């Protein structure tokens, strides 16, 4: 049937400075269809969808709605074309009820009558099978309920084209199943649904067609029925890229950190770490792979003493004293006082690892400012350290008295990694240390990690680029929804294997028989 697609993108290109986020992307989505946009982190999925919903404006290319070319300059324009997007980060007012949030910003809809609106919301919810109390306050809601509010908000405004950005990233398997059944009903109702995701099993389960992006480029579109997970993985990750990262074999390894049975809930009460166990050895790089938000951050913060755990243990084998210490629920200071030399490069460099408004010297002191017996700061050594890091790591900065906030991303990271390495750690943890860095800086970081490994440090590396993880690490722990789905030898594994483990959900296994 030669139907006119509900939405069609032609040769969309978007650049941010030197970075090409989308290059000549073409897409179509029909009425009554669920289209998945599949791609790894940073493949340009969200940027693309933001251009449809009016947050960004494309540099080149055309957008057609029902066959007519349109210009979408603002979210308001997008609403006008009945396009609604549900973002990953919810935009809700906490102390308002669901109804109040849903009608927020609407004008000229007759008299303000929350009861009437609530009834309409109930009707929408019933039509598609949502479970929602319109009078419940947002702060009392689970993540899934909040997401429901966001979806109904879009439907209430009469959207026919819904874009969902990683809708299942925050949901439990049960909630995911409920969401999917709702989406199917909407599809039956003639809505166009576009889901951004990187979970293969969900793609297979829910979508009619899949469009794949890789590093900003459009790879192709396939019908879900005619493909399988490994074919999609290949499209998504591409051919293995040979990286020139040197990797020596681990020598004289011993168990440094024994993590057993970690359980942790976040503030919303979602289980973010679920019985996580692994061992990190000295003289090796242990990779941690997983889609964003699978518990990587909580895992590292738990080890660093920043995250309270429900249960489990983190045993540290002190190489000097040969004693064992349990680091669970200890503060960073207590951990240090135990003689554990733990370095941590957090994901949020300027918000946590460094203080943006302080200069290089003062940032060097963050970990060590208490050294010395006087009440005064000892700045000469940090200053030397700053100078040394600037020289060794080729940090581009006007001077060491420049606030780090003014440095570029790569240089900020060099300063942070340099400081953490200078503490002569026995355990070195880094979360996404090359995110946003150019090739040269990235390689510099890889080399630094390798040097640490060769010195006998136990390195834990959380990364997102599978090529890098496989080329750099010795072993890789794969996390999915807070669970360890596998620990693989990096030298023997493939991207496909890791990719599948990353998207594996226990919910799926347990209830594999259903539907």
């Amino acid at each position, binding site marked *: 049937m030669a139907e006119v697609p509900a939405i069609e993108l032609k040769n969309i290109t978007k650049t*941010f400075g030197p970075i090409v986020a989308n290059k000549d992307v073409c897409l179509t989505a029909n009425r009554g269809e669920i289209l998945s946009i599949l791609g790894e982190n940073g493949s340009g999925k969200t940027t693309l969808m933001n251009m449809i919903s009016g*947050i*960004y404006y494309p540099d080149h290319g055309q957008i057609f709605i029902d066959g007519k070319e349109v210009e979408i300059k603002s*979210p*308001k324009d997008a609403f006008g074309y009945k396009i609604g997007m549900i973002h990953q980060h919810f*935009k*809700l*007012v*906490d*102390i*308002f009820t669901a109804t*109040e949030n849903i*009608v*927020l*910003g*609407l*004008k000229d809809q007759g008299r*303000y009558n929350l009861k009437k609106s609530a009834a309409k919301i109930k009707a929408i919810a019933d039509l598609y099978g949502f479970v929602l109390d319109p009078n419940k*306050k947002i*702060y009392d809601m689970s993540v899934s309920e909040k997401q429901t509010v966001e979806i109904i908000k879009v439907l209430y405004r009469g959207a026919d084209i819904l874009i969902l950005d990683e809708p299942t990233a925050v949901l439990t398997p049960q909630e995911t199943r409920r969401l999917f059944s709702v989406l199917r009903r909407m599809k039956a109702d003639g809505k166009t649904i576009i889901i951004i995701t990187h979970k293969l099993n969900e793609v297979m389960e829910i979508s009619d067609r899949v469009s794949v992006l890789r590093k900003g480029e459009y790879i192709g579109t396939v019908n879900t029925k005619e493909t399988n997970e490994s074919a999609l993985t290949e499209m998504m990750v591409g051919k293995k890229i040979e990286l020139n990262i040197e990797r020596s074999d681990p020598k004289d390894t011993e168990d440094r950190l024994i993590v057993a049975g970690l359980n942790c809930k976040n503030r919303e009460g979602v289980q973010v770490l679920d019985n996580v166990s692994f061992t990190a050895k000295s003289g090796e790089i242990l990779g941690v792979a997983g889609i964003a938000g699978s518990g990587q951050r909580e895992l590292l913060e738990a080890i660093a003493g920043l995250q309270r755990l429900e249960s489990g243990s983190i045993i540290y084998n002190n190489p000097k004293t040969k004693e064992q210490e349990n680091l669970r629920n200890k503060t960073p200071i207590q951990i240090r006082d135990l003689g554990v030399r733990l370095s941590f490069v957090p994901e949020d460099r300027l918000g946590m690892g460094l203080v943006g408004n302080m200069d290089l010297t003062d940032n060097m002191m963050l970990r060590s400012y208490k050294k010395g017996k006087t009440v005064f700061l000892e700045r000469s050594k940090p200053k030397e350290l700053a100078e040394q890091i600037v020289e060794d790591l080729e940090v581009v900065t006007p001077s060491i008295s420049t606030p780090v906030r003014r440095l570029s991303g790569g240089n900020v990271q060099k300063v942070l990694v340099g400081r953490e390495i200078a503490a002569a750690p026995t355990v070195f943890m880094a979360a996404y240390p090359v995110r946003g860095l150019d090739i040269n800086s990235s390689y510099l970081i890889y080399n630094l990690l390798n040097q640490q490994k060769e010195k006998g440090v136990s390195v834990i590396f959380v990364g997102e680029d599978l090529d890098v993880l496989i080329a750099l690490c010795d072993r890789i722990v794969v996390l999915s929804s807070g669970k360890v789905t596998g620990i693989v030898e990096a030298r023997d594994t493939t991207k496909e294997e890791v990719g599948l483990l990353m998207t594996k959900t226990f919910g799926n296994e347990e209830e594999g028989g259903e539907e």
Partner: protein
Amino acid sequence: MTMLVQFIQRAVMQGVPLLFGSTGEILTEKSGHLNLGIPGIMYVGAISGVIGSFFYEDKVGAANINPFLAVLIPILTSILGSLVMGLIYCFLTVTLRANQNVTGLALTTFGVGFGNFFGGSLIKISGSDMPAITLSATSKCFKTTLPFANSLGVVGKLLFSYSFLAYVAIIIAIIASYVLNHTRTGLHLRAVGENPATADAAGINVNRYKYVTTIIGSIIAGLGGLYYVMDYASGIWSNGGFGDRGWLAVAIVIFAIWRPNMAIPASILFGGLFIVYNYVSIPGMGIEAQELFKMLPYIVTLVVLIITSMREKRESQPPQSLGLSYFREER
């Protein structure tokens, strides 16, 4: 009994300026702005009214004033004065995103100075030998009460014996309460104060809401100053006479947990606490006990502030973005 009735009447009269002030401040805070300039704005509202009425009385002679104009002119000049103050605050904190606390305190310095300066100047012009301006004729117009109030006995005295501005204050508070909780505008306004980014994303013009509410809030607070001088003080302006009532109004905002309808009883209560020392005598305590009684409103406010922060009930917290400037980050 008469004593009690009189006490309540006086408490209400004390409470009215506080009610204007706190209603104005509640609206402002609901838009996310902690306006510590309210005491200054109330001063300006008062003196602007005094200036208007002074020149009107001066022009036509105190004996020949038209009661309608005598009320209208001070109200208009008062509104004008507070409006300018509100505009200054908005321009600095909304458009230029200046620190709200510093701006507010500077506005209070400026406003109190402005009030006392023009007050002092008028006193000089009038050539009065007392350090005060007396506008008894105008005040009489302001103080007109319902004729039947006194014939209705206690009920009449308690409910109907006040001048019209007192009822205006209560009506404004009720309207403000209604608008905040039962209209789309109120919903949008609360969203702006809670989470401006979300409001912005929902297509609400955040800066316009902040401007309009803060200016309306200033005008309402300014009327409190006008009521004080025209009614409570019987048209007598003396420098510094208004005292710390502006800060008491800020305190009521907390006590009323950001609800204008709650501000009505709270203002009367605070008005009562402010004067209760005149009516209570504790054996063994002399006149100095007055000063301890005057402390009560602040202590009560602190207790409420502490309890609300301990209970962590979300509805009784200050608006979430109170005191923070909003800036939509460019991508």
